[in-house]
């Protein structure tokens, strides 16, 4: 398979126009010593029907979520994606274009991103959003980067923040030179060298946090308050802006994006207008053209790497625009009342599932006194990983194993997709697995 359109005759004509006698001659600048003398150690090319057959064969070795009923979450959720989302986001004028460097040819992308920014502001109750980051974890990195500086290099992270996010933050921190400390409870000790306090709400155990307490402490200490949120909760939960967050970040996958075994996902970030010049990545703004017609452009580019180089806020260039398009369309599909109904469905179905599962002997809520949204942690009489495997045999993806203090619990997530009969079957299978071998 090869998409180059050249015929032999054309190659000859073109070579002669450039004064070369062979294609090989085009590589004459490469020193002989470094020229590859043998074929690459990759098989020779195959036809389209063969590559499809190969990858289809691989794909069916996976057990996908059409096959396993999904109660796994941990930041990535099996919400329903209406067909129109990808019927539209999948239009090739969108997905085969690139960063809108020529705005006159890119009003489509630019306007969708403007709408996306608006929606994220509306969701979060904050004032400014960008046009996407890689994912939730790297969005948190960028948020912390916005906060760090001028003598403030300590980063206090609540122990309810997803450890995958904390790990990612730690990796970047090695370069960016901030120090990361995890704290328990809701009253971090915010000294003047603290850049920010990071709280997840709902937290990684699904629990609703007393966010205002954390953020009160942050603000009292002059630090920025950063919230990790779940966009699907914001029809029913008070938005970060209202809870005192200065910056809010999230994994935006649930907004119309497929689970894709982890990516491509969508990093969301929103902040207060004061911080607009510290924001990372692309930002779209509205303006007018020479005739006064409204239109959209990339703006505040002086923040970015292609202009500011080593002084840029962030090194991000290619982002996750296509996922932002999907999120925009998805949120339009939901609408405000749909977002609210979604939240209510999730919390109700999760509560039902928790009740059914904890009626199994030996299964209890790991955090029994805490309110939760759509995910909750179970203490099981057996190792959660073994239980997960046993439930795969029974057709369920039971959840995600997660450390809680020094034990391992099972995180169970319940979206609007999970029907009562699926939940009942899941509870029965869990019971069966726990008594079984």
């Amino acid at each position: 398979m090869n998409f180059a359109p050249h015929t032999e005759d054309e190659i000859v004509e073109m070579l002669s126009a450039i004064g070369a006698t062979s294609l090989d001659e085009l590589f004459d600048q490469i020193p002989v010593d470094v020229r590859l003398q043998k074929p690459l150690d990759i098989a020779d090319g195959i036809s389209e029907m063969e590559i499809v057959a190969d990858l289809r064969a691989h794909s069916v070795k996976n057990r996908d979520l059409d096959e396993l009923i999904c109660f796994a979450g941990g930041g990535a959720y099996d919400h329903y994606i209406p067909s129109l989302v990808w019927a539209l986001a999948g239009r090739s004028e969108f997905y085969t274009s690139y960063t809108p460097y020529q705005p006159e040819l890119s009003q489509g992308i630019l306007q969708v991103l403007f709408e996306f920014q608006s929606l994220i502001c509306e969701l979060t109750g904050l004032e400014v959003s960008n046009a996407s980051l890689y994912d939730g974890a790297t969005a948190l990195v960028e948020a912390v980067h916005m906060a760090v500086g001028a003598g403030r290099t300590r980063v206090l992270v609540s122990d309810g923040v997803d450890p995958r996010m904390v790990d990612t933050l730690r990796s970047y921190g090695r370069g960016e030179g901030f120090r990361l400390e995890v704290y328990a409870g809701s009253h971090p000790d915010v000294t003047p060298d603290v850049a920010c306090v990071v709280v997840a709400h709902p937290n990684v155990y699904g629990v609703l946090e007393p966010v205002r307490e954390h953020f009160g402490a942050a603000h009292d200490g002059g630090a920025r308050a950063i919230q990790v949120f779940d966009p699907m909760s914001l029809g029913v939960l008070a938005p970060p802006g209202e809870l005192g967050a200065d910056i809010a970040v999230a994994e935006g996958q649930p907004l119309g994006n497929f689970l894709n075994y982890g990516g491509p996902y969508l990093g969301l970030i929103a902040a207060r207008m004061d911080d607009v010049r510290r924001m990372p990545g692309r930002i779209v703004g509205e303006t007018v053209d020479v005739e006064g017609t409204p239109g959209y452009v990339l703006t505040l580019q002086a923040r970015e790497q292609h202009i500011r180089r080593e002084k840029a806020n962030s090194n991000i260039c290619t982002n996750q625009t296509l996922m932002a398009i999907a999120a925009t369309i998805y949120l339009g599909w939901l609408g405000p009342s749909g977002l609210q109904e979604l939240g209510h469905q999730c919390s109700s179905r999760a509560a039902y599932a928790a009740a059914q599962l904890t009626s199994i002997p030996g299964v209890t809520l790991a955090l029994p006194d805490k309110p939760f949204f759509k995910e909750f942690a179970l203490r099981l009489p057996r190792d959660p990983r073994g239980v997960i495997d046993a439930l795969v045999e029974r057709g369920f993806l039971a959840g995600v194993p997660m450390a809680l203090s020094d034990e391992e619990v099972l995180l169970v997530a319940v979206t609007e997709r999970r029907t009562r009969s699926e939940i009942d079957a899941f509870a029965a299978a869990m019971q069966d697995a726990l008594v079984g071998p």
Partner: protein
Amino acid sequence: MTGGPVTGAPIRTQGAEASTGTIMSRSVPGRRASSFARLEVPSAPVPTAFTRAGSPRLPEVSEIDLVRHYTGLSQRNYGLDTGFYPLGSCTMKYNPKVAEEIAALPGFRRTHPLQPDGTVQGTLEVLWRLERALCALTGMARATLQPPAGACGEMTGLLMMRAYHADHGGGRTKVLIPDSAHGTNPASVRLAGFDVVGVPSDARGLVDVEALAKLVDDQVAGLMLTNPNTLGLFEEEIERITELVHGVGGLVYYDGANLNAIMGHCRPGDMGFDIVHINTHKTFATPHGGGGPGAGPVGVVERLEPYLPTPVVARTDTGFGWDRDRPRSIGKLHGYNGNIGVLVRAYAYVFAHGADGLKSVSELASLNANYLAALVRDDFPTAFPGRPMHEFVATAKPLKDRTGVRAMDVAKRLIDLGYHPSTVYFPLVVEEAMMVEPTETETKATLEGYAGALHQAAEEARADPDVLRRAPVTTPVRRLDEARAARQLKLRW
């Protein structure tokens, strides 16, 4: 217009009726597209202490509103499927439709990142095989597929550089970067905690090796380079360059943005590079998505392997699995394991082309670039004399000197003539730069059409420069006031 049929076309002219507000302009209170299953379990709202008071202003619309709005917006956007898109450094080659079909298979698309390894053997094998192929292609020992784009790949590489030096004496603070480098390079260097030291270009547009020799010292953690460089020129003294850096104990990083030029002809590993990132959205034609997603796998030589991000795919007796037991790893760079959906497309590209196909890709990419460079040379000479590889940087400076018309004006005029213009004003080392990367998937006729349009624009510049300064006139909006956008910030509804 000369030179063959036009492949692209401007986005449609805006009639009085085509102007569109945001989706909110279609919103009607109480309208709604979404529906859910009846709630057949007891209602259990979140506790009132946590509830949201007001409603966010999301659109209230029906499906047909959404479909028409976003279909209409798509038609106001120019993509590769619309026409030629010769953005230099971006490798805007044809995105195979087959890769979209494959990535949409439920076995790939509908899997959760935290499923047990035993339930995703297909994907893990795909990742493992892709890693092997990327190593074969670049001459590296192992690779991570985790970085979601090139810039993150850079960060990954630089953090590994940092960790490596920390294990080997430490104390290195500087990273060298040629002045023709892409902006992400210096930005990444800073974020990785190093200082940027610029390396000048010589008269050939290549690294000034003598200058480099003076810059290397034991403070140097490494050098970042793309080869061919952003001028499309191969660093002919590449062995000397990598030796110089290695000589002081530094590492050499290969920015893979231009890998499309050399596949099957030479390998970064054989040139002495220690770390290589690849942009799958460039070299392997995964769609750019209007700005993303991409993927930025990073390959390393043997001695850097312990530092690769966690986890990496391992092959064991019982199948494939994630190896998380990597004590010297720099850790995680992405919340999950990277842009898997993009990597699946990259796999399709790599294995469908195969060794022979990839080699031919680079040959024809160079052929196209050289051919187009030759066609436009009279009006827009290349900035440096060397033979370019997969892209070339021409300059509008002679035209500007004569007519006052700038590269940007030429670009805007190309829009009216039916083409997406090339990158302009990058690399910074060339005045009035026009950085053209046609890619191998474009036809001779398309190149000739583009050359014809460039020639027409040059003629017009000489005859009536206002035609260019007024351009574009065929697009839904004309030139936009960017200064106003930055001054009177309007970033949301």
